[in-house]
């Protein structure tokens, strides 16, 4: 099965050419890698390549096709772009305004929401303040916007990457 795998900004064509036990021949963008791959712990892979010992830890992020892959020093965002995802991506195109959904990347507690639905906010205005581990973070709009929806209340405990405020 040939697949496209997105790693950071790069899109790689990947194919498992052959497999015998843990010994595999894998083609990445035309180059063949003769590797020995074993999952040693849940999500942790030991790979021997040209004698060198690599350890890659995979943490699934949103679904089974998205990973954070940790190697010795680097951490990569890896996405499996199979037919299904490709189709969905092509259908939706690039027409999502990424800045209309305000979220916090980490969990925390909503300290303050200095806006109301319908408010016009200027570029750089904070729309929500979240506290985690004794540190407060403000989340601001990057352009002039109107507050369309506020999905949380002050005092709420929130998840990471949860949409908190929608602007337009």
């Amino acid at each position, binding site marked *: 099965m040939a697949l496209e*795998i997105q790693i950071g900004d*790069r899109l*790689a064509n*990947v194919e498992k050419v052959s497999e015998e036990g843990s010994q*595999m021949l*894998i083609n*990445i963008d035309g180059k063949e*890698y003769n590797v020995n*791959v074993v*999952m040693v712990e849940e*999500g942790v*892979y030991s*790979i021997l*390549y040209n004698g*060198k010992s*690599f350890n*890659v*830890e*995979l*943490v699934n*992020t*949103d679904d*089974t*096709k*998205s*990973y*954070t*892959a*940790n*190697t010795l*020093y*680097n951490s*990569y*965002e*890896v996405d*499996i772009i*199979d037919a*299904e*995802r490709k189709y*969905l*991506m092509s259908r*939706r195109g690039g027409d*999502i305004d*990424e800045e209309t*959904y305000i*979220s916090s*990347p*980490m*969990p*925390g*507690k909503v300290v303050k929401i200095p806006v109301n639905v319908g408010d016009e906010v200027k570029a750089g205005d904070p729309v929500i303040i979240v*506290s*985690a*581990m*004794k*540190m407060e*973070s403000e989340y601001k709009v990057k352009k002039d916007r109107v507050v369309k929806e506020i999905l949380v209340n002050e005092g709420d*405990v929130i998840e990471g*990457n949860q*949409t908190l405020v929608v602007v337009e």
Partner: protein
Amino acid sequence: MIEKVLVANRGEIAMRIMRSCREMDIRTVGIYSDADRTALHVRYADEAYHIGKAHSSDSYLHIEKIIAKAKESGADAIHPGYGFLSENATFSKRCQEEGLIFIGPDPMAIETMGDKITARKTMKEAGVPVVPGTAEPIKDESTVVETIHNIGLPVMIKASAGGGGKGMRLVKTEEEILPAVRSAKSEARESFGDDSVYIEKYITSPHHIEFQILEDKQGNAVHLFERECSVQRRHQKVVEETPSPVMTPEVREKMGRDAVNAAKAVNYCGAGTVEFVTDDNLNYYFLEMNTRLQVEHPITERVVGIDLVKEQLTIADGQDLSVTQEELTQKGHAIECRIYAEDPDENFRPSPGKIKHITEPMGLGVRVDGYVYEGYEIPIHYDPMISKLVVWGSTRKEAIERMRRSLYEYKITGVKTSIGFLEKVMKQAEFAAGNYNTNFITRHWDELMEAEDCGGDCEQMAIIAALVDFEKKQKETPGSQSNGKAKASYWKYFGRQKNLTRI
């Protein structure tokens, strides 16, 4: 002897204290907030009681609730750890009143050291050097100039009524004195309607060096040498080591004596730390005294060979110090790195969440004091420090090499940590040379923020692992692909993309 101790704290320090209690056959009582039912100290304690809501004011800072639990559980002593109520004079007093042993100094010592002005005054009286400067505001220009000459350059002129840098002038050379005094006074007058100023010695490249002390109730006091804590980010210690690479035996002896005098001046009891600001020529000045155990106490324990928590407990019990100053020696070198749940690539923003996987470093000379475990969800309510990695080496060089090795071995996933950042600190030539000061992180910011690269193969290996894992899951769950729910994942996918691009 104390038989049961309530530990009024959480996290690694609660574990640290309970470990020594267990070795001494002292029973432990843990307390926990709503956010901490699954915390390790609750599992480790002999007894554990719920104390209140997640917010500290309702739990770990609630004096009366804690005292009530101590009495209810039959504890005869309370250990406050660090942070929370550890430097709260009222808490120390309330314990006294209730007949509970507070493992720390009496209220008076806490109060004296807790107030900067009183502490400075007390130290001056005890002959401990404080940062040279004026105690009272000065109005007269010639007196200001005279004072500056007495203190010696460089100095900082500060508006008495000041704040926000207004009326503040750094004076480095003789010629700058008069113009600086005049402009400072005029700016002060304009800003605050008051042109009186303070003069303070300015420490150009300050080192943060502190001394560990112990004093028993009989007044026997010793110091356990210094800790160098100059690797700081925003006034927060990041790496500590002992001995200090800039220390000399002569200055050590003098500072140690002053630290002991500082403790004696307040009739101190227990373990405490006297912090000094030190310049490149090892002129040192009293900064403050922390009247509790410090986060970085393990490096002293390792090099001196004393369990500080055990000393706290026996001192609180009224026993004599187990050692005299003459018996204390330093052997080898110890370094501590504080591991935080934070993302150095995102301006060190906190990263609470669920620990997926931990591999702790092991072997010769390595100590880990932590409290998180696999599957544990780090609460959003408390400090982001998840562990302290302490290494020892026969030399400073070996200690650094061992710290690098240990950081290399230390893997925590599920949350972001400062491990990679600390590895880069350990690799800085200036750190290896040992002549750094508190400007270290600022000065090396660019190198410390540089991405490390394990070479082109790493990226390929990440791709291979992802491929193998994905195919494995495909095999295990046939048909999981072909349905409408995939749409949801698509939205999340973009949600994540959005976050990435914002980075």
